[in-house]
């Protein structure tokens, strides 16, 4: 175990080095670029033994990773924003073919207007593509998720590709002190990739075939079961992780001061830290505030969310995305979880940070005050009654 001062991108690259992927397909896009640069340096200096493929587009990046996974190799790629959208066809393809590829996505706004800064519209627009989706809060978690991602994705019960999301710039480019496990520890935790879903010269296979109406639906059902099975596998994996590396994670969600909370903010990614600080401050003022950080958007933590929100007076969902013409995607998912569980609590949606716009501690305090008083069901942070967003 060593300590280094690393950005989120670099920490993720260290985690990938420890996971020993055999094929890496790389195409640059800000703010993901650094992760593929670091990996190329690792291949160059021999500290990572992998085929490093300079593909000519994101569509090819994922297509190449699918080919490698079909060949039985552990595959990695990374992207962001327009790149993620450009490879959308292949996202569904990888999931339907049950290829447990790991991809890092640096969450970034999508055009138009062009914008390179962080919001989560890129990955949240792909929730239905059949990938596991995690959202890291800091560089240490990014590294740890890189290592855990393969174990979760490759588990025979799961066999589903894994998208690890890091908030663009706020996490990808911010430096923190990070603990890096040794290769011995990592190898003990993550065995080499073994799969039946691969090219086999002893008993040749036809893969990625067509299936008509009668059978297609069975394959889709199995795909759904695979991603659901990840919930349990994530918990098991984190337990094993804690035993070897001594760091504990909390499954699909992470709760902060929620036991007696009357008001809870549900959010995801790197903004959670500021939410927790604000909750502390509000508690000093006598407001019983708490925070739920969603760590995984797929599988979605239906039960965890319903359990934690069932006794509050009101909750807010704070998210950096919008499903145009409706509301924030996370809000839709949270409300659905509560409805299924028969929980009837007032919930409000706060959309902010689009195109990288800052969300301040004051904004978060205001969220808590306004949900205590009651407000619009969908609110846009920093845009008053009028369109003053400039």
């Amino acid at each position: 175990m060593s300590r280094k001062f690393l950005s989120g991108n670099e920490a993720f690259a260290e985690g990938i080095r420890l996971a020993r992927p055999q094929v890496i397909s790389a195409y640059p896009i800000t703010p993901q670029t650094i992760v593929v640069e670091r990996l190329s340096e690792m291949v160059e200096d021999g500290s990572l033994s992998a085929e490093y493929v300079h593909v000519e587009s994101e569509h090819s990046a994922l297509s190449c990773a699918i080919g490698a996974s079909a060949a039985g190799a552990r595959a990695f790629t990374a992207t962001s924003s327009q790149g993620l959208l450009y490879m959308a066809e292949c996202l569904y393809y990888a999931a339907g073919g049950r290829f447990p590829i790991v991809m890092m996505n640096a969450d970034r706004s999508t055009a138009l207007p062009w914008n390179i800064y962080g919001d989560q519209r890129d990955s949240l627009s792909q929730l239905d593509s059949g990938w596991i989706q995690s959202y890291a809060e800091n560089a240490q978690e990014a590294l740890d998720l890189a290592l855990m991602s393969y174990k979760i994705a490759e588990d025979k019960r799961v066999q589903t590709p894994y998208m690890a999301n890091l908030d663009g710039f706020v996490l990808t480019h911010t430096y923190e002190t990070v603990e890096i496990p040794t290769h011995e520890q990592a190898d003990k935790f993550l065995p080499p990739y073994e799969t039946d879903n691969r090219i086999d010269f002893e008993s040749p296979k036809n893969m990625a075939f067509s299936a008509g109406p009668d059978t297609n639906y069975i394959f889709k059902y199995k795909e759904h079961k695979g991603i659901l099975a990840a919930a349990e596998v994530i918990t098991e994996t984190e337990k094993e992780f804690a035993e070897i590396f001594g760091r504990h994670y909390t499954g699909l969600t992470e709760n902060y001061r929620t036991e007696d909370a009357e008001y809870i903010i549900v959010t995801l990614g790197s903004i959670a830290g500021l939410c927790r600080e604000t909750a502390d401050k509000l508690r000093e003022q006598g407001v019983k505030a708490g925070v739920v950080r969603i760590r995984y958007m797929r599988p979605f933590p239906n039960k965890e969310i319903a359990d934690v929100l069932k006794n509050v007076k009101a909750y807010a969902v704070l998210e950096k995305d919008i499903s145009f013409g409706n509301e924030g995607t996370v809000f839709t998912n949270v409300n659905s979880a509560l409805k299924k569980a028969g929980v009837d609590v007032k919930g409000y949606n706060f959309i902010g940070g689009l195109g990288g716009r800052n969300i301040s501690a004051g904004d978060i305090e205001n969220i808590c005050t306004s949900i205590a008083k009651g407000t619009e069901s969908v609110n846009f942070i920093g845009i008053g009654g009028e369109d003053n967003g400039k």
Partner: protein
Amino acid sequence: MANKAAESISREEFFYGHKACAGCGGSLAVRAALKVLGPNAVSVLPAGCMSAVGFNFPQLCFSNNSIISTFAGTASMLTGVEAGLRARGYKDFTAVGFAGDGGTADIGIQALSGAIDRNDNIIYICYDNEAYMNTGIQKSGLTPFGAKTTTTPAGSNIHGNIRPKKNMFEIAAAHDIPYAATASVGYLADFIKKVQKASQIQGTKYIHVIAPCPTGWGVAPDATVDIAKEVVDCGLWYLAEYENGSFKLNHKPKEFTDVAAYLKKQGRFKHLTDEDIQIITASRDKKWEFIHKNFEL
């Protein structure tokens, strides 16, 4: 040389029980190539007729390892398969793609260009039936001038496809690829020889084989091989190779057969006027001037 390769070809079938139309030139090309490449070929097929007729679960028709790629992703999936198998320690295999003209010259050209640029050790075979057949005979970048398709109707305004065929063979060669070749299922021994040669060359190999589609071309199912021969004999297609920086012509017709006769046999060219046929003949002659100047014999 050519005959010897044809004689030694395996009797084993690797593409069997598929649902292609009777007389399909594409399936003939796939079948012959796999006989040459054998059980250690891993084939990648994008959306298109050959994947549509061969992979309908549970009726799976390849007896070698085979996989469908996305429409645009033939070459990049080949790259991944090749890299993945190599990373796992395999040496004795061939990653081969079979893509239609649309999958090659239009949507998949970026991935193909990328793979050639990296010089990935793959064979890419384009079976050229001169249109998007699987979606119902629409124009592709390789549909020849004058042809009627469902998106280039032959009326008084449009009169069929008004653009010439993209030259994929020379586009591939312009990357300075280790090996590129043209072929026709009408000259099967030549095609087989080229597949065999490609399998022995390191780096990216591109073979462009004319593979008539009776359904789309409007010819009888038993006319495929003849019409694929005739397109070469009348000079509208040529058999050539690119290797070590130079072009070589493999077959020089002593005298061209009649272009009009070739065209008039096919439903897709029925509407052509004498003037259209003159344009086609003139462009053929221009092409052959170029071939004589730039290709070795």
